[in-house]
């Protein structure tokens, strides 16, 4: 349970301590990649709780979503359309849905445990 949290803390401290910065023009790509990664993560947690978790789907989804989001943003920049907004919208909606499902599952589990 604590292992993933440790990973998160390790990742954040690694990023903060190395003080890596990316050029300003790539900032939007990174932010959208972060969003895509979060979306995949919560999707994975939900799948795990619903017992439909698949390793391949999760890992491929992670990298594919990030790539797709970045590609969409790239295309948007070159076409002059804010296409990244589409990605933000899609990921945002899915993020909320996933979190809502996770919450419901956890609530159900909790009440079941209480009834027992």
């Amino acid at each position, binding site marked *: 349970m604590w292992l993933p949290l440790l990973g998160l803390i*390790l990742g*954040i*401290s690694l*990023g903060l301590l190395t003080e890596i910065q990316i050029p300003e023009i790539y*900032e939007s790509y990174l932010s959208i990649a972060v969003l895509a990664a979060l979306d995949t993560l919560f999707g994975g947690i939900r799948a795990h709780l619903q017992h439909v978790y698949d*390793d391949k789907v*999760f890992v491929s989804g992670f990298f594919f979503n990030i790539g797709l989001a970045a590609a969409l943003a790239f295309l948007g920049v070159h076409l002059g359309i804010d296409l990244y907004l589409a990605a933000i919208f899609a990921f945002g909606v899915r993020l909320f849905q996933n979190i809502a499902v996770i919450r419901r599952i956890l609530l159900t589990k909790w009440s079941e445990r209480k009834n027992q």
Partner: protein
Amino acid sequence: MKKTVYIRFTIILLIIGFMLAVQYNTVQNPETRDTRDIWAIRQELSKETETHSELLSEVYVLDQTILKYGNMVNESAEFALKDTVEQLKKDIGLVEYTGPGLTINVEPSLESIALGQPVEGISPDLLIRLINEINRFKAKDLEVDGKRIIYSSPIRDVNGKTTVNNIPVRNAPFTIKIGTSTFEDAQKMYNQLEASTIGDDFYIDNLKLMIGEPKRNITISPYDQALNNEFLKEVPEGKS
């Protein structure tokens, strides 16, 4: 099975954390490229050196005051205090100034006289611009049409008349007196004002700046109005 899932999540979270931290780094302190060339750096350096020397001279003056206090403490502390008050009054312009400086005459331009255009007063904006320009060249004391400029002197339009210290400035011609620390400074100021583009701004308003030669002795009248202390209060006697 479960362990591999946790390891996967850990790796993914590690990547997410790293990305978040990088994003945070980029947003919080964006890297600014130093695009100055050697000339710009040199100019900045000279500016800093100037500040340095100014600070040193200020320190010297303060050191002198401390020394004076030290000497006077046995004789008369009151005298030293009075001296300091006198010096402060001199610094902010409550005392008549006599020393090196130069005089600027603001006159109507020849064209406006030839064409018979009415002479209009100087606008507050233009006067403020001129005073900023003069202060930029390190003026010590300043007087516009007999009105001493101090730190709180207002320059504004009152019913269509430009006023300094709430007293209207005459239509051109009038004089502006500038006091400087040394005669060399006055010469420098003369050259800088001659080279400055402020004259062109006056020309647009049909006025002409006649910058007088630097003199070793000019007199600038003191500020003659009451000073309002908004924040400082007198301490009653016996308390400290």
